[in-house]
């Protein structure tokens, strides 16, 4: 069973201004479904990050509409967008962006803290999320004491601890070796299939293809091809 959680319709985005103005997206329509892991692939500069930013309510489109769990982002101000992000979306970044001065558990708990969840259960939830990504023993470790793969898993725990319907990841394995990349992808695939979330991963690494339910190819600001793969049937 799949169901639309995130819908983009004819989204266009101009970046820069004046002579440096770039049409980064030129009418992109895309739907993300719960329970599905979607890969967004395309050459460098094709607009992948821009699309991810718009789907993740970090940028608003120049034209077109985005609906997040039924809420349109049209006319939303930065505070409204922050609210949509914290209620519905979890992010994973290429360079992790963990807080170096906070322990793994506190890094995860931060995502609950910004949601206003400060009770004792926040600590329990953070520990659970770390256990979910296979790091129950690293609760007290600081990012500097963790390997890249471990850091990215902490970042995934932070992305899912608030129970968002949508998880967006920009090149989550680019900074990792093959083995760690595979481990991270397994966790993200599990998050999609076992927890029914919509997961979108930007990558240009073909080794990730086996994990995808669907692959969307983008070139020069346009979606050029979409393929369904049977990964979820395995």
């Amino acid at each position: 069973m799949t169901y639309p959680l995130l819908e983009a319709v004819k989204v266009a985005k101009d970046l820069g201004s004046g002579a440096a103005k770039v049409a980064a997206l030129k009418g992109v329509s895309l739907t993300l479904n719960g329970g599905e892991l979607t890969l967004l692939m395309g050459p460098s500069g094709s607009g992948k990050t821009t699309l991810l930013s718009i789907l993740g309510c970090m940028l608003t489109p120049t034209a077109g509409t985005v609906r997040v769990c039924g809420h349109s982002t049209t006319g939303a101000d930065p505070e409204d967008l922050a609210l949509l992000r914290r209620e519905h979306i979890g992010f994973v970044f290429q360079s992790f962006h963990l807080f170096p001065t906070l322990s793994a558990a506190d890094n995860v708990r931060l995502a609950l803290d910004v949601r206003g969840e400060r009770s004792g259960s926040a600590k329990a939830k953070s520990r659970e999320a770390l256990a979910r990504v296979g790091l129950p023993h690293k609760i007290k470790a600081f990012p500097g004491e963790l390997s890249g793969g471990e850091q990215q898993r902490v970042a995934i725990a932070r992305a899912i601890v608030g129970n968002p319907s949508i998880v967006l990841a920009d090149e989550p394995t680019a900074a990792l070796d093959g083995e760690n990349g595979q481990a991270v992808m397994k966790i993200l695939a599990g998050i999609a299939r076992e927890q029914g979330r919509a997961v979108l991963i930007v990558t240009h690494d073909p080794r990730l293809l086996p994990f995808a339910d669907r692959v969307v190819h983008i070139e020069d600001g346009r979606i050029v091809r979409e393929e369904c793969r049977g990964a979820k049937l395995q």
Partner: protein
Amino acid sequence: MPLVFTLAFRNLFHDRLRFIATVIGIVFSIVLVTVQMGLYLGFGRTVTTMIDHASADLWIMPQGTKCFEDPSLLDMRERYRALAVNGVAEAIPVVIGFADWRMPSGATTPVFVIGSDLRAGGLQPWNVVEGQIEALSTPRAVAVDRSYFDRLGISGIGATAEIRQQLVRVAVVTNGIRSFTTTPFVFMDIDRARAHTGVPSGKATFLLVRLSPNTDKAAVRRQLLSNISDVEVLTPAEFRERSRTFWLFSTGAGAALFAGALLGVIVGTVIVAQTLYSSTKEHLTEFATLRAIGSSRRYIYAVIVCQALLNAIIGFSIAAIIGETIVQLTAATALPIVITQGLMIGLFLLTVVMCIGSAMAAIVQVTRIDPAIVFSR
């Protein structure tokens, strides 16, 4: 511990050098403000020492008297007019004036003579450490403070000198009666004070009025003013206020102290603003990450304000310890620095306002932050 606090605390201590620089800036600034305001309070207190130690319910003085040290004169006939008023029990004359103290060596130094009727006890030396007050009624006897021995060229009881070519002999020694003008006080009987300062025998500087029990002070004052012309009648509180206003504001001393304090505040604000700004700039990606994972602006402001408050509390605590030390070091000087509880609370609030005010530049910076930078860094 709330995460906002943890984050603020760790951000702050992450760069020790900058943190130390910030705290030093705050400490300098607050100590400077403390010293200026403490001097202001100390000065305000010292200029009224004599008024504080006179036993009077009302002061009668010539019209336009600016302060205790103002040497304008009253006619002694006013004393009888004052005594004629119902409710006035006593009207004790006091004479003050500058004079030259000639040491046996021939050197001279200016002194400030205070003479009052010793039997009536209107304005007598206090904190007597050697000799007896009663000894002042013996011929030529004067009281001086121990702290001025060097200045006066004497070594203790029995020492002699000349004022206006007339011999004086030290009969009483006090401790801690210091003058903010640094001119030593010399206490003596009123008649000799007149002789030593050239005040005619029918004149006095002040009349200290004591009331009979259960008398209406306001009514007595009205009656005094209508009976005696060209004088003013002030309560001790009013006279204190007038002296203080004169010395602090007419002389510009107060304005200079406030200007110094203001300078301290400005320097402190600039230092804290600068370091908070650069600290925020350094952690900009972290703030963008917070924003990306959905934190509200208020959450981010809370982190920055929390950093500012930590700066304020740590800086203030150190400044308070230094301030307390300065208070103790200056306690025995002519211009003690005085820190009251009210000043302490005011300084703490000032530190907090200063630190939070300086957070503004940092806050404006994060307000403009674009969370999408987390993808490119």
